[in-house]
């Protein structure tokens, strides 16, 4: 497919005088994309705009090249959506709820039932098919939400905080499902607050803050763009003073902090060179552990959002 899965142009939305989203331009092709940002940064607004649940105040969204507006129901064939709010069909049994949505999607009879069975199987809820949603825990309802989103195996999947309230086994299972799903050239947009879980499944990120686009792209690219901050490597091991002295003399470092006897923080502008250097030292057996900040989503998130917040 040539048209991008999602393309937004100058997308904005105000709620009265409250700003939800302001002038968002992004294009998403395929793969898993993490959508990050503090509460109130516009993630849910974006999700609702993408699914045509609310009108844009300005700008527009294209889903696979087609304008998405609340009336444009044909686009919903290519789109699966798990909203962030709780599911609230308390009196329905899980299978009835899914069957209802399958039929609304245009299937009927046996083929609808087939889709429901498949979706339930994928989230591992087949034994719970006849349980009413009211009797389920929040985590189980979250999984049903994911199931209804993948009912038609759409090429675009939008998941808003799908892991919220799930217990650890379900979290892992859902993440596995997302990973598996995206492997087949489909697009998944995953909004989440739990950074290490986003980190575990994707490197491609969109970060929103105050309703505006803060950063978009690969994690390491984003990190490289933040130039004013030097990069930091932390090592633990033996004889660190000598290593420090050596590195200082070669003028590679922009900063150096010693923490106790066995921990050294090294700040540099050229991380790759420093790492190669450390590799040399490490091969001699002096380094026990090595860590760099750009590998961690938390650190990048802190730099981008933490600095500008409040």
């Amino acid at each position, binding site marked *: 497919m040539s048209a991008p899965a999602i393309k937004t142009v100058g997308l904005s939305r105000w709620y009265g005088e409250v700003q939800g989203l302001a002038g968002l331009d992004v294009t998403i092709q395929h793969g898993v994309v993490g959508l990050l940002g503090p509460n109130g940064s516009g993630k849910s607004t974006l999700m609702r705009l993408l699914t045509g649940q609310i009108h844009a105040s300005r700008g527009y969204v294209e889903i696979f090249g087609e304008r998405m507006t609340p009336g444009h129901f044909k686009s919903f064939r290519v789109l699966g959506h798990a909203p962030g709010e709780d599911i609230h069909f308390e009196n329905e049994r899980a299978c009835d709820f899914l069957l209802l949505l399958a039929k609304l999607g245009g299937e009927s009879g046996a083929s609808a039932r087939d889709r429901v069975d498949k979706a339930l199987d994928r989230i591992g809820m087949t034994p719970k098919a006849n349980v009413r949603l009211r009797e389920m825990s929040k*985590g189980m309802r979250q999984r049903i939400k994911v199931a209804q989103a993948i009912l038609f195996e759409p090429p675009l999947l939008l998941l808003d905080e799908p892991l919220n309230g799930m217990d650890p086994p379900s979290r892992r299972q859902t993440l596995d499902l997302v990973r598996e799903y995206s492997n087949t050239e489909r697009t998944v947009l995953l909004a989440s*607050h739990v950074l290490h879980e986003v980190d575990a499944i994707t490197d491609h990120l969109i970060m929103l803050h105050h309703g505006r686009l803060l950063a978009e792209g690969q994690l390491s690219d984003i990190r490289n763009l933040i130039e004013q901050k030097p990069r930091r490597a932390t090592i633990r091991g033996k004889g660190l003073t000598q290593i420090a002295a050596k590195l200082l003399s070669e003028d590679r470092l922009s900063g150096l902090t010693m923490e106790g006897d066995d921990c050294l923080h090294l700040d540099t502008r050229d991380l790759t060179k420093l*790492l190669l250097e450390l*590799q040399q030292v490490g091969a001699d057996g002096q380094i026990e552990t090595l860590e760099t900040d750009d590998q961690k989503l938390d650190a990048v998130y802190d730099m981008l959002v933490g600095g500008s917040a409040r």
Partner: protein
Amino acid sequence: MSAPIIALDGLLVRYGKFTALHGVDAIFSGGSLGLLGPNGAGKSTMLRSILGLVRPTAGTAQVLGVDARKSGTELRRRIGYMPERDAYIGGFSAVRGLAHLAEICGFPKDDAMLRAHDVLHFVGLGEERYREVSTFSTGMRQRYKLAAALVHDPEVLFLDEPTNGLDPQSRARMLGLIERITKDHGLHLVLASHLLHDVERLCQEVWVMEGGKMRLSGSISDLTAAARGARRVTIANDQGAAFHAAAEAAGFACSREGDGRSFVVHHEDRVVEPDEIFRLAQNNQMVITSIRPAARSLEDAFLEVLEGE
């Protein structure tokens, strides 16, 4: 050390035909306890019996040396409970609502008001004291609930999913607050959470429950002990596959994790030393961006316990 904070002795709770707790025995002698378990494991029933709100069918729950069933009311004066759902007194300003809750726990009127102000300052809601809670954002509401759990100066704190739905900053802030209360002021903590990273950071001990039974109780450090001298290694961009091949060729067992750049490297019969890995990378012109002992995460350990039987 006096009586244990919580001592469950054959605690059995039935609702009609359904058995929520199958005779649980456990002792928590103080510090910070993580309460883990999938949904429906019986955590909330246990919490209710500890607060003296449910009459156990058999067995006893002793909290702070007192039988929860007999003197639940007295006990709830000494326990701070932070519910998972939003819970506040409507129609009152934040500070007035807290003072009211403190008065119910037996604080004199003036002390209750003073205390409400102090606690709100502590959780960082000082500026919003006089606003109504209904106007608060998610993060503020969670901190308000923490303040409400603290306002009557409890000895034990029960927190139910305190970081649920919080964005990373608010979450870090919430964890920081809880850490300060427990570490610096000696409050005992029982934390029920699905976010095992939080539990790992705050707690020393865990109880793992499933299906109304206690599956495991022990210290986190035992649970997450490093696995047989393995190392977790991360490689710079685009070199993952090459590293994988090289490591296997050198005789290591190498398992890929997550994004494809992280690996757990181990060797069947010996400890993997960092220098070996560095040399391996050097020989293959790769850049290692991190290396550390592959401790099991609490998540792995937890899932393993659940799958155990």
